[in-house]
Structures are given as C-alpha cells and as structure tokens.
C-alpha cells in the first residue's frame, strides 16, 4: 500500500481495529513516513480524550419519573389509537391542501412538464419547497421536515432555468416573499459570517442562494427550515 491508501486506515490503526496484515503494513510504513506517524499520534490523542469524557450521572428520581411517564403515555396512546382509515384520511386532506396551494402558485398551465423535464427534480420536492415558501398557515407543520440540500439546489437551478425562459417564477416567488413581509427567507450563520438565502429570486439572487447552500452542504446533507417560522413571527410581532 502506498502513503495515500494508508492514510485512510490510520484512524483504525490507532484504535487497533486493523487486521493483522494491515497492522503490519502500517507499522512498517510509519517507521519511515513522518507525516503518517504524526497523524497516528494525533488520532491516539483524540482517542485518549474521547475515552475520558465522563458519563452524565442520572438521578434515580429521573429514572422513576421516566418509567411512570412512559407507561402513562402508552396508556394514552392505547386510547388514541386511530383506526388506519382515519389516519389515511388525515394524510389525504393534508396532501390535498399542499397540492391545491402549490397548483395555485406554480404556473397551472404545464407545471408537470417543466418539473419532470429534469431527471433529478421530483414533483414532491418542488411541492415541498413551494409549500414552504407560500403557505404561512401551514408553516409550522412543514418546517420540521429536513429537506435534502442537493434537491433544493436542483430546484433552485430549475427555477433559474424557468426564469430565463419565462420570468414568471421570479414574479411568483417575489410575490410570496412580499407576503411574508421580508426579503430574508433564511439566515445561515457560519463561523466566519452569515449568509442569507432569500432576497430576490432573480438570476443573481438564485446564484447566491445556490452558493450559500453549497457551502452549507459541507456541514450538512439536509436543511430544516425551522427558522422561517420564527423569522416570520419576529417580523409579525
């Protein structure tokens, strides 16, 4: 194995998780490679610190309370157990609600054609985004769902394309932004500064949002728009 391949196994080596063969190869390599030897040493230091992290003490009263509450909650959910058809009905109404609002917002002429023209963009993802953007009343219900960032980027890219062709998406989203009384949809504080997604849904605005999401993607695969609601409430009050 070469230096490059060996590096992937150094953390396992430092934790003695390698097979005997791997172990021997790495052991020989680090005799001559200072960089890898240093890395192994660093992994060992981290391992040493991690081991020392103390367990939190859990008070007995806490445990008793937990058991009582759990049994009580199970009793309650026994009584509240909705029959399946009722749950289905709830889901149906919810979907209908989102669908209606989305259709109202997305160009009703041929939305499906635009949306399905890309192999990565899915109708439900577009609906998801649209419902987040437009439906203030349902905001609380929807914000808790994590959205994969890559699909959001794809959606924004698609919006860019639609913009170039029609310009109506631009107007539509600007109208929505106006409705929620502000231009900031979501603020992303990063350790160095904060970047904002939102603002104008024009060419440069969308490009900015995509850049911002890409940088955020380094830390996370999904994003949860729980801040819209709090932001909305802030501007409202």
């Amino acid at each position: 194995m070469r230096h490059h391949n060996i590096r992937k196994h150094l953390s396992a080596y430092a934790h003695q998780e390698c097979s005997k063969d791997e172990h021997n190869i790495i052991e020989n390599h680090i005799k001559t490679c200072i960089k890898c030897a240093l890395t192994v040493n660093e992994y060992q230091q981290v391992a040493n610190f991690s081991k020392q992290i103390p367990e939190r003490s859990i008070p007995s009263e806490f445990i008793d309370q937990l058991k009582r509450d759990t049994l009580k909650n199970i009793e309650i959910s026994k009584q509240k157990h909705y029959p399946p058809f009722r749950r289905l009905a709830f889901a149906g109404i919810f979907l209908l609600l989102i669908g209606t609002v989305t259709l109202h917002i997305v160009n009703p002429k041929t939305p499906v054609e635009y949306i399905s023209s890309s192999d990565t963009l899915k109708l439900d993802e577009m609906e998801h985004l649209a419902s987040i953007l437009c439906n203030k009343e349902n905001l609380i219900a929807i914000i808790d769902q994590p959205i994969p960032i890559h699909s959001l980027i794809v959606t924004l890219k698609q919006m860019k394309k639609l913009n170039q062709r029609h310009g109506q998406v631009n107007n539509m989203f600007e109208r929505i932004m106006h409705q929620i009384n502000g231009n900031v949809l979501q603020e992303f504080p990063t350790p160095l500064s904060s970047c904002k997604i939102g603002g104008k849904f024009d060419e440069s605005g969308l490009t900015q949002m995509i850049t911002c999401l890409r940088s955020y993607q380094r830390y996370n695969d999904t994003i949860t728009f729980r801040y819209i609601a709090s932001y909305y409430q802030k501007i409202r009050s």
Partner: protein
Amino acid sequence: MELHQVIQKYQRPMVAIACRMLGNLEEAKDAVQEAFIRFWKSDTQIKGDPFSLLCRILINHCIDKLRKQTFRRFFSITEIKDLDIMKSNENPHKSLENKQLVDHVEKLTTRLKPVQKAVFILRDMQGYSIQEISDLTGFPENNIRVNLHLARKNMRKWLQPILKED
C-alpha cells in the same frame, strides 16, 4: 418479560446513550420514551433480549432528531466563542487543563454529522465493538467503519490546534 419490566431494565443504559447523542437529560428522556412507545407499537413479542431492538429504535430516532437540529447546534454561539479562544491562544494545550480539553472534545462531538456522531459515541466513548454497533444500529459494518473514520478525521482536524506535537 412484561413491558414495565423491559422499561425498568433498559431505561438507564438507554438514557445514557440518548443523553450523549442529544446533549441533555430532558431531550434524552423524550427520546427514550418515544423509543419505548414505538417498541410497544411495533407489537414485538418480547423474547430473549430486546436491548438491540430498543437501541436500534432509539439511536435512529436520535439521529432523526439531530438531523433536524444540527443547523442550530453546529452554529451555537458558545461553540464559536470557544473556538475563538483557541485561536487567540498561542499555545493553547499548555494553558488548558486536561478537564477543559476533555470538555472541549465532548462539545466538538456536537459538530459531527448525526450518523458519525452516533458511531463515534458508541465506539470511541462507550467502547462497543464495531460488530456490536452494527447490532445496535442496524447499519452494516462497512458503513460504520467509514463513518467512524470520517468522525475521527473531523475530530482530529478540529482538535489539531490543541494536540501536542511530540
């Protein structure tokens, strides 16, 4: 075994895991309760040792919860402050006590992606073997190895300013 016996027997180790995953007792309590309720709803016949199944439900629930919260956690103000302190210190490892360093390592785990965090806690903090973790989470062993490597690599990177060079 009756349900209340299952709860009695496993709640403490479950709270311990959930507490490390979620960072505080209150959230851990909610998560463990939720796990027991889901376990109960799954109508599993309690034969043998249900600990693996309970953990699987619990850990996956915690991962879901963290996915929803990571945004908030990662950028929490206290963490950024700590990092600033580290940067401004010329030789931080000399001025920080071991306990402070361990505290700092614990805080840094909140920056790991949820799955990485789960395997890091189970392996490097709780000391479960990779095979046991596979049993407790339902993840394939290979997947665990990869995520474990990524977690350790991240931790090493973030801790580099305070690691000794000898």
